[in-house]
């Protein structure tokens, strides 16, 4: 018996070692969830190894960081001033863009509130340095220099400003493992931005992330952005994942896999952000940025308004100046289209005919009547003027009283707006109209029924001339 052990000592040791490890493997993989937390013994071994390996890595990394920082902060400062100027201008531009998006975001929030959907915002992140990897192709794992002492827990999303990186797995006191999205055992709920196709992202055997088991769809095009869908309860919705690289058929043949080019450069990671807290309300900082952006846009609009050439021509006749000012003041208000002013009015010119109340059926309009109307209007030089109807409102021809609005203006008022003039911006003073033929002020214009244009009520219908 002794000779058997001594003879096969080497082989027996090997078999014993292998058997022990196989049993250990069987115990570890017996857990129902493959990504569940390790047992106490396994975790202890991992903690020891990480504790032994990471201090030199941390030291080397900080030394390299220091040398690089020395170079960046003191030596490589060429063009910094110009860069700063460019960045400031870009910041202004981005603030304006942000404000234009803000309204859409708020509308989206309102709609989400109506639907009972609660979007999660990123509240708090912890910046961490990547100090190492697993070192093998079979395991796409990163080591970061922050752990449970800094508030990191397992299954927290890890991102960069470019896109998501992965999620934390084993967390030690001052170190954590991050499982990258390119690993075959990772999983992230994603959605294609344009086609809205959802799927699960995981790494393939070459370490490239792919959306697996997607129904074939011709709309999936190369370059389409891929975002997190929020369905995995780990990554907040809407984070950038990458772009569609290509579509490859599934080995089964019925479905396809969509290969994704990750937005974050997973092979050159130095700093990452671990999202440690999310919430349903917009963070204070984001709100503050939003209000600052709105103020910046307001200022920019004012500056723009001052710099742009005025639409008011100081050499133009007073009525045209006033019309231009009124246009700017009432921008957006619905108004009827004004007919162009005739140079030589005739019988067909609007307001060239006497009021309908003065017309007799079957009687032709006499030249005297027509000239009386024309003469009165031409005397003002302000174009056609609506005649007030008897019993409805008479012109307020008070001598010495200047009209508050020009004749053309009063004619152009929309129903309902005539009785309520809007404040006009300060502009060149308008000339007072002659004392004769004072036009009615807007406040004196009879209110038209809602929805009915004002002009037809002041001009006779064609059948009145028959």
């Amino acid at each position, binding site marked *: 018996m002794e000779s058997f052990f001594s003879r096969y000592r080497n082989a027996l040791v090997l078999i014993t070692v292998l058997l022990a*490890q*196989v049993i250990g*493997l069987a115990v570890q993989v017996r857990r129902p969830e493959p990504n569940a937390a390790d047992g106490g013994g396994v975790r202890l*071994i*991992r903690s020891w190894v990480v504790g032994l*390996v990471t201090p030199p890595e941390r030291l080397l990394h900080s030394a390299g960081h220091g040398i690089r920082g020395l170079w960046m902060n003191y030596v490589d400062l060429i063009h910094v001033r110009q860069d700063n100027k460019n960045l400031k201008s870009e910041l202004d531009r981005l603030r304006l863009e942000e404000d234009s998006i803000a309204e859409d975001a708020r509308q989206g929030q309102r709609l989400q509130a109506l639907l009972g959907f609660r979007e999660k915002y990123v509240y708090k992140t912890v910046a961490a340095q990547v100090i190492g990897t697993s070192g093998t192709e079979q395991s796409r794992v990163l080591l970061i220099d922050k752990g449970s002492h800094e508030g990191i827990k397992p299954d927290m999303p890890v991102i960069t400003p470019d896109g998501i990186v992965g999620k934390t797995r084993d967390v030690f006191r001052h170190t954590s493992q991050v499982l990258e999205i390119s690993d075959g055992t990772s999983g992230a709920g994603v959605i294609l931005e344009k086609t809205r196709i959802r799927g699960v992202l995981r790494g393939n055997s070459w370490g490239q992330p792919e959306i697996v088991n997607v129904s074939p769809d011709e709309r999936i095009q190369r370059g389409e952005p891929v975002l997190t869908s929020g369905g995995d309860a780990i990554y907040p919705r809407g984070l950038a994942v990458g772009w569609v690289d290509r579509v490859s058929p599934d080995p089964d043949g019925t479905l396809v896999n969509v290969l994704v080019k990750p937005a974050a450069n997973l*092979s050159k990671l130095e700093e990452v952000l671990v999202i440690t807290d999310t919430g349903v309300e917009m963070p204070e900082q984001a709100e503050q940025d939003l209000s600052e952006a709105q103020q910046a846009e307001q200022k920019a609009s004012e500056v723009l308004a001052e710099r742009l050439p005025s639409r008011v021509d100081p050499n133009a006749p007073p009525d045209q100046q006033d019309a231009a000012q009124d246009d700017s003041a009432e921008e957006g208000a619905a108004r009827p289209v004004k007919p162009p002013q005739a140079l030589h009015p005739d019988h067909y010119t609007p307001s060239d005919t006497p009021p309908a109340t003065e017309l007799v059926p079957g009687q032709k309009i006499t030249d005297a009547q027509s000239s009386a109307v024309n003469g009165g209007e031409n005397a003002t030089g302000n174009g056609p003027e609506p005649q007030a109807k008897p019993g409805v409102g008479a012109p307020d021809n008070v001598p010495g009283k200047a009209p508050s609005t020009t004749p053309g203006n009063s004619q152009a008022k929309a129903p309902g707006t005539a009785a309520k003039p809007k404040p006009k911006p300060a502009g060149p003073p308008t000339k007072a109209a002659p004392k004769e033929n004072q036009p009615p002020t807007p406040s004196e214009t009879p209110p038209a029924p809602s929805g009915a244009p004002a002009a037809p009520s002041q001009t006779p219908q064609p059948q009145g001339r028959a």
Partner: protein
Amino acid sequence: MVLMASSRREVGAKSFPLVIYVVVPLLALGLQSLLSLHLSRFDLIDLPLLVTIYYGITQREPVSATLVGTVIGIAQDALTHHALGIFGISKAVIGYMAASLGVRVDTENHGTRLLLTFGFTLAQTAILWLLQRHMLGQQFAWHWFHEMVRAVANAVVAVILFAILDLTRRRDY
């Protein structure tokens, strides 16, 4: 036969100071972890495997080589998210094979080292494939070209690394 050990000097086992047994594997693990971060294709190289092979072929003691391979492999497992034992089993087998072959072949020859490392790299991948794909049911793709490139790269690095490690050994006759 050029590759076979033919003299007492060639089959003589080498020993190392105790600190080397601790520092070199740790250094290999740390460098593997660190350099893979900064050099994108460095994960083709497996420094812990090379250290295991080196201890095997220089110690020529299958039991100790098996144990050293096991410890290095489990430490490498600890840096991954896999279950502990995958690299442990593969490196235990490689250490045993390296020590067994080290008795029979001239491990001082660079050509021998090149060929041995090439073969052991492929053997480790085969063991990993067997364990992960068929025993644990995990995803593991075998790409022949990729594995050949990896084996060649490891063999070339091994020749350089073994020459450096030779400087640390203490020759026992």
